[in-house]
């Protein structure tokens, strides 16, 4: 119990961010029309590609002769980039079609 309380107060800043972000996330897309469900999902998919930052950090911290760490990091960077780039490009292609609204 003591541990948990300590952990909460040590990480209170992060916990605040998490809680506020949950509300922001819900508010921000609350009124989306169903037409946009798919592109929105795709866009959100690209945004969670931000995990690439973690991959870059792992990669950049790995010792140059530590091959397992290098390979893990390298794969993570590739996969993360796929998520980000592919995600944004696919979303853009979907939305391109909404542009010709007359």
């Amino acid at each position: 119990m003591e541990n948990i309380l300590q952990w909460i107060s040590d990480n209170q800043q992060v916990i605040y961010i998490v809680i506020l972000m949950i509300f922001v996330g819900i508010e921000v897309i609350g009124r989306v029309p169903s037409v946009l469900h798919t592109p929105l999902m795709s866009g959100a998919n690209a945004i969670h590609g931000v995990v690439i930052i973690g991959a870059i950090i792992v990669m950049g911290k790995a010792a140059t002769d530590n091959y397992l760490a290098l390979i893990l990091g390298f794969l993570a960077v590739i996969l993360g980039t796929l998520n980000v780039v592919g995600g944004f490009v696919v979303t853009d292609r979907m939305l391109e079609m909404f542009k010709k609204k007359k």
Partner: protein
Amino acid sequence: MFSNVLTLCYLVASVTFILGLKMLSNPASARKGNLVAAFGMTVAIFATIFLYEDNGEKLHNYVWIFAGLLIGTVAGTLSAKKVKMTAMPEMVSLFNGMGGACAALISAAEFYHIYEAHAESPNVPFAELVSVGHYLTIVAGAIIGTISYTGSIIAWGKLNGRVKDFSFKGQHIVNMIVLALVIASSVWAYKSTIGDIYIPFLLIGFFAFIYGILFVMPIGGADMPVVISLLNSFTGVAAACGGFLYDNKAMLTGGILVGAAGTLLTILMCKAMNRSLTNVLIGSFGGNKAAAGGTTAGAQGHYKEISLADAAMVMGYANKVMIVPGYGLAVAQAQHTCHELEKILNEKGVDVFYAIHPVAGRMPGHMNVLLAEADVSYDKLLEMEQANDEFKTSDVVLILGANDVVNPAAKNDPASPIYGMPILEVEQAKTVIVNKRSMKPGYAGIENDLFFQPKTSMLFGDAKKVLQDLCAEIKAV
């Protein structure tokens, strides 16, 4: 100095993510919103590469990092550019899986990092080195990321038909057991000493891997959009775990934002189908096939076919034709031909509108995107309520490869698995022409009464081929 600039860059990224998501939920600003978020992402990535410092030390291995970025960018752009409009949903699922795998790998690397740093003292209990909170973030990232990865791959396979629905009796119990094993392995790993921790850690990954597969396997293909959206929010949470691990606010805000928005979006998608999330996940559409077939078996009866010439005649002399597009249209890539038919009918003085069910196709909004690609003008696309008013005054309804969204069982048959889903009430029109490839049931796996009604006639064949022939016939009328 560097770290302050980095903080600023992350702040910019977080704001663009929120702004981007906000703009994405409005048709007028959606495309810009996507670009705004992409811009923020680029800033965050390059800021990390060049400005990140770990205990005062810059990152190294630049060759590896840039090689990885390059491979990912080229592969991602090519596959995203080349994918057909119909295959978009599975592409999203695939990319989502990549993100999940990335999060899992980060956790694995972090785990390995701790393991290696203490490798020379194998008898030290792991719990003494790492706090519960820290351990939970690593393990949560690994578990959620892995589940999201395998789940997304299965969802991808289901959407492109490579993976068939599969369920067996007691599957939910098996799923629960596997999930319990994931948790048990996590506890075991935490209690282990450094020397033999890798076995339980690999087991965590293994069981999470299996769970991801089992979790998606029994859910019917029609529910895949909902599942993908859910897995999407999972990956968001996994990314947030990484943000927690590195005390990185951009990852944290981005991840949680997607986690929350994704969950809400999942619920909104379920609502559009008038079902609850639990119903989707546990009631699994596909799994009830046998039972559903039993209850509607009575609907089997005679259906009548219509010839192309007759169909062309009926449509050519109609005042108003409503087209109900469905997945069949998407599969056949017939959107352009469909627009062609619309133009030909217009020349003959026939009004043509499209009735768009919110979940027609494989993704909400699928049909809008598809028809927009073919330059069909927006005011021709009627949403469900509007369309249901228009059916009364329509002479002909042409259904192109849609099935469950026009199934009257959703209104009349409480025993039907889709009971309660709002549908397009096409039977109010004078004539209904249904184009399908065969009498096979739709994705929900249930019979459709509509096909056996006296005012309905069937026009079998691939949507594109049939539409081309119809165009030719109508021109000749």
